[in-house]
């Protein structure tokens, strides 16, 4: 009889303890990130698709059109083209295209790049409506966005633009 009452009372008490925990959570601030409006900063070692690095001093690409990345790529998804120009030392980059449909994100291109002209982007908002949307013109993107930390409200926006 005593054991029975003890069990009933301790059981009831445990229910109130549980309720106390949830009500404390109820009044604590929300911890979720409201995704399309807020995003978390990506980890430094996050490997997105590659992008060209904008040089801090010149504001141009550091690419010297050596083609090492193109050779290193096991899936042949990088196309680099350049031309000689009057009064400029070395070659000038005219085309840098990444076919992301084939990229396996191995990072051999980034490793092989001597002037450190390419890096992994932090872009994970990669929804698109067609296959062509994933053929990235990285040279055009270099001039249009200070790519790295820019947050886009809806992920597919720049991909859709790239398609049009």
């Amino acid at each position, binding site marked *: 009889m005593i054991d029975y009452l003890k069990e009933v009372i301790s059981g009831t008490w445990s*229910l109130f303890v*549980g*309720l106390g*925990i*949830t*009500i404390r959570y*109820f009044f604590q601030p929300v911890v*979720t990130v409201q995704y399309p409006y807020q995003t978390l900063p990506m980890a430094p070692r996050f490997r997105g698709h590659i992008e060209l690095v904008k040089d801090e001093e010149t504001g141009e690409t550091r690419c010297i059109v050596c083609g090492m990345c193109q050779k290193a790529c096991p899936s042949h998804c990088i196309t680099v083209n350049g031309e000689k120009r009057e009064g400029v030392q070395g070659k000038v980059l005219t085309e840098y295209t990444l076919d992301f449909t084939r990229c396996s994100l191995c990072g051999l291109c980034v490793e092989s790049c001597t002037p450190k002209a390419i890096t992994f982007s932090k872009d994970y908002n990669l929804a698109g409506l067609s296959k062509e949307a994933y053929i990235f013109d990285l040279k055009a993107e270099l001039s249009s966005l200070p790519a790295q930390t820019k947050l886009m409200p809806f992920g597919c926006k720049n991909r859709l633009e790239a398609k049009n």
Partner: protein
Amino acid sequence: MTLDPEIIRLLAFLVGVIAFASFNAAYLVWLERKEAAHIQRRIGPKEVGPFGLLQPLVDGIKLMTKQLIVPAGVDPVLFKIAPILVMVPAIMSFVTIPFSETLVARNLDLGLLVISAFASVNFLGLLLGAWGSRNKYAVISAGRAFSQNVAYEIPMLVIVVTLVMVSGTMNLTEIVGLQMGGFWHWNILNLAASPLMPVAFLIFFVCMLAETNRAPFDMSEAESELVAGAFTEYSGMGFGVFFMGEYANIVIGACVATILFLGGWHSPFPDTIPFFGASSVIWFLLKMYFIIFTVIWIRWTFPRTTFYGLLNLSWKILIPISFVNLILTSAMLKVF
């Protein structure tokens, strides 16, 4: 031809009661989602209207525009009337509930009995719907719902009988009238009648949870085991009406708990708190919504019990204690 004012009054109450029940059914879903979210430290509905307040409206439109599928092999009559059989008793119960001294559709002398009776009829709707669905999960669910109803009706009614003995009436308005003047006069703290009164309130509350099929006693709707229990075959507004009935029953349960134990429309501090007055419908609604808040709070705190745990709780704990309370109360009434 002159219209009897009584008829106009009844019509007004009829419309009011249906509106109140539907409004609550819609916005308790919103409250449930919001409260669940905050207990889990999320935000919950927030896109549709300010604080997601238009969400129930959108949900309603969605449910109404969906096709009402009547699966082949169901009993078409039972299948179609079952949702209504759940909704109607809930709305009927509102007729006798006094929201304030004057705000009551029909002040019946046997109001408490009427509500207890209608509370059981809604289980009949569940059973018919499950049987008519011709679905094994639905039938298992109905079986569970019934043994649950039988088990929890007993302690609930024993507690109600105790309160009827203390009050000496089954008229809800009079029961509230006896609890006038400060929270220490409410039945929950009526220790002169029985020292076990707070326990009696607890038992009543637990039985109310079980009677309204709320977690942790939602065995009849256990979605991880029984798909959606008795509602498995229902789609669109058939499902919607079932849900409205469930929420209306929660409101009824909270109203009855407020009337029996928490002093109905009386202010807890009639002399010290100036606002809302000593007796007003606002106090009633505050207490009622606090109970509903607690019901939702419990749902998002405790996991579902096992079925045997559920029956053992009733037969081994709630029923013995409620009988002890009944005997104690009658002895104290006799002695003092």
